């Protein structure tokens, strides 16, 4: 249902005043959704039926004509009946009470893995999710971006097919609708897979927004309302896209990682704000689709979480691939040109520059999501950055029986860390006294080529004054990489000279995402160089680079 601006006599324009709702808010008929001023009069605009605000079609302070559309209210999910007109009353009247051993809030890779693990260990588990099973990772993060990466790799292969001796006649066209459609199918299949696992493990999945009443009780508002009392609670509410105050950020051509994943038209050009993991993955996706890509990064290098030489390598490769990278650059504002293009003003040491593109993608990162959780009702402390929930190595908060895992703890924003933290939390609930160990957490970035790292980085080791040795081997010396036409990149291993153990490794190059598992296994189990050099690696594979890099600590790589 659309809520329209009231008719103003004389065809004058009104001004939108305070907008009182947000997308996703539930409204009842008669609830005030916005204020509108005409001349010096003010009047509230009210919802005409109950529903959920699905779109806000006006902006505070903007001019609005009679009968212009202001809000879209989705009333499909609202059951009939007078109860629905007052949700607060409804919550008190009709809440079902549930008692459970373990309540997990959030069904992302942290929450749902913890739920399965707990159920397998005999706990009665209730899992609350306000949106889709699988969380950010499955729905708008890891998985969908990887589906796009695959499409873009195929686009790249097809464009370069002639090099491999395959001639393609006729135009190559990217059908973005199909790209998105395929991504949605992959996602759908995984989400229904989790759904199956929930049923198989007899996990009670409840759909709705959870908010703490106190340390043991959580109210859930959804199609049905619940009051849940739990012996233990795991908060796994994940993260949300960080907001940034750049003027023009709300212009229609500005995307974020979520909206970009459902954008079915392929722009000719895109400016990506932020050269971190999300920004760089999208940069290579769009580049491989044939889009003209600019990346604007505030820091002096891309991907600040990896070592400087890897940053430099990916920046060099990006430049060769015609991705325009602007580091040490600050975006000042985004404006719309008369023909609806994005005009981005950014500033570097040489002054202000203007950049024109079809679309803008803001990829400045994600932050812990505590929205609607009313965590303050529990006494749980936030971490010193004042954002995420503070936990100890056992994933326990300062409040007994409340645990937090994953992005909401603001420790490491990685799906597999969240899953592992979930298992550690459940083990502690089961009195098994486990602690989380972050010394060998692998991290993969799906640029082209891929980047992967685990353990201590070279920069980090040096900054900490550790006594380390670094070995390196280039992919140019690897036969398999050459057959793939991917000679760029290198592997690097870090050895602790005092213990002889390999404590870190980074790979930029072909198959980095697969190779990192072997390296992680070595590091997590405290291997030294000898244990790697004496292992037989199959030929011809990219995995041989690990063997060569380990040899480089001693007699030197054989193929270099």
């Amino acid at each position, binding site marked *: 249902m659309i809520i329209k601006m009231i008719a103003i006599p004389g065809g004058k324009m009104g001004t939108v005043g305070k907008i009182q709702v947000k997308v996703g808010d539930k409204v009842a008929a008669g609830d005030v959704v916005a204020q509108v001023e005409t001349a010096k009069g003010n009047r*509230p605009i009210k919802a005409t039926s109950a529903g959920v605000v699905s779109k806000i079609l006006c902006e*505070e302070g903007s001019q609005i004509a009679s009968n212009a559309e202001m809000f879209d209210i989705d009333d499909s999910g609202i059951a009939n009946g007078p109860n629905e007109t007052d949700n607060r009353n409804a919550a008190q009247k009709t809440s079902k009470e549930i008692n459970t051993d373990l309540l997990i809030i959030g069904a992302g890779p942290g929450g749902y893995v913890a739920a399965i693990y707990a159920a397998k260990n005999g706990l009665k588990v209730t899992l609350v999710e306000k949106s889709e099973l699988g969380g950010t990772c499955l729905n708008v993060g890891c998985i969908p971006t990887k589906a796009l990466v695959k499409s873009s790799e195929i686009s790249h292969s097809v464009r370069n097919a002639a090099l491999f001796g395959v001639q393609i006649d006729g135009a190559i066209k990217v059908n973005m609708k199909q790209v998105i459609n395929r991504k949605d199918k992959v996602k759908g299949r995984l989400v229904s897979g989790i759904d199956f696992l929930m049923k198989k493990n007899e996990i009670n999945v409840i759909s709705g927004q959870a908010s703490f009443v106190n340390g043991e009780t959580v109210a859930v508002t959804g199609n049905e309302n619940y009051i849940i009392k739990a012996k233990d609670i795991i908060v796994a509410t994940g993260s949300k896209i960080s907001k*940034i105050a750049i003027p023009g950020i709300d212009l229609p051509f500005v995307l974020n990682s979520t909206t970009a994943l459902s954008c079915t038209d392929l722009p000719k050009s895109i400016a990506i704000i932020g050269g971190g993991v999300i920004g760089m993955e999208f940069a290579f996706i769009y580049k491989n689709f044939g889009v003209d890509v600019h990346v604007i990064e505030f820091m002096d290098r891309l991907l600040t979480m990896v070592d400087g030489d890897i940053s430099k390598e990916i920046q060099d490769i990006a430049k060769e691939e015609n991705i325009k990278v602007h580091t040490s650059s600050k975006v000042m504002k985004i404006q719309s040109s008369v023909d609806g293009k994005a005009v981005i003003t950014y500033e570097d040491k040489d002054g202000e520059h203007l950049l024109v593109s079809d679309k803008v993608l803001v990829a400045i990162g994600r932050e812990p999501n505590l929205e609607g959780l009313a965590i303050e009702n529990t006494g749980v402390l936030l971490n010193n950055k004042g954002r995420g929930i503070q936990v100890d190595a056992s994933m326990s908060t300062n409040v007994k029986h409340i645990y937090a895992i994953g992005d909401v703890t603001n420790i490491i924003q990685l799906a597999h860390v969240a899953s592992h933290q979930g298992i550690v939390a459940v083990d502690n609930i089961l009195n098994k006294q486990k602690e989380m160990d972050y010394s060998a957490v692998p991290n993969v970035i799906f640029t082209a080529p891929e980047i992967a790292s685990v353990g201590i980085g070279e920069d980090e080791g040096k900054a900490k004054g550790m006594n380390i040795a670094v070995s390196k081997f280039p992919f140019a010396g690897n036969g398999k990489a050459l057959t793939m036409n991917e000679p760029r990149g290198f592997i690097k291993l870090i050895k602790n000279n005092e213990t002889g153990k390999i404590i870190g490794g980074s790979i930029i190059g072909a198959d980095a995402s697969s190779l990192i598992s072997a390296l992680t296994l070595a590091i997590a189990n405290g291997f030294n160089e000898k244990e790697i050099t004496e292992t037989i690696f199959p030929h011809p594979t990219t995995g041989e680079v690990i063997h060569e890099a380990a040899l480089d600590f001693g007699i030197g790589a054989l193929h270099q």
Partner: protein
Amino acid sequence: MKKIIISKEFDPCFNIATENQLFLDSDEDIHLFLWQNDASVIIGRNQNIYAECNLEYLKEHDIKVVRRFSGGGAVYHDKGNINFTFITKEKMENQAKFIGLIKAAMAELGIDCEFSGKNDLLYKEQKFSGHAYYTDGDNYMYHGTVLVSVNFEQLGKALTPSKLKLQSKGIASVRSRVVNLSSIHSDITIDKVMQAFIKTFDCENIEYIDKTTFKAPLEQMLSSYDWLYAQSPQFDMELEHRYSFGNISVHISASDGMMQSVIINTDSLQLYDFKSCEDKLVGKRFSEQAIWECIEQYIESNDFQY
């Protein structure tokens, strides 16, 4: 039956809550509410409190700020000002009649005035009365101020926001040249203006109210943080402060009174990482003082000289 209600209280929260209660209880008669406030700034429904007044000055001089229900810009009230409110049903709305009544009352005092397109009454192109209206459901109110002997020095300072760089959505005030009726005719007093209103409204049914005789349920809501600050439309603000080591500028983006993002920059050559300050401030209520305290604390704790 039409009625004149006169408030004996000078508390702006009580008076505006009372006005709203009378509005909610409106009928098809036209009622007149007359009221006066202690020194206060009354901002429009959709205004940004930070953009409209000098909060520091208000605090120093014990001047209250209240957000009203009607639209339009910020006004300064004190006991040299009198307010009128016509309350009726929306179908009885008749702006021309209301303005006619006020003009007649002014004529009674020997003031010949005209109505401007901006909903103001002007004497020789200087404003002495600003009007606004509000409607909700079928209720309607038309209200305004009449400047009789207002402290203009205080008015000017109260309504001049401190030098902030602010980009706010919502409604901005328009500055006007103002004049006191007492400076046009020195014998005009608040009491005379009130008598003129009562006379022209031609009504003998007068009710005096105060906090003991009239309950205005919204009084508390009006003084809440949420109503006053969080109802400010979304805004971006740039703050600057000069320290011995250089300038610090802070860019804040706020909605519902909460800081959604904070970016701290400095032109100092020293290396500062203000990320921890930024992280601390995000999600908190907007407060200039809190921002500087946070930054100074960070600098002190990092042993920087400033």
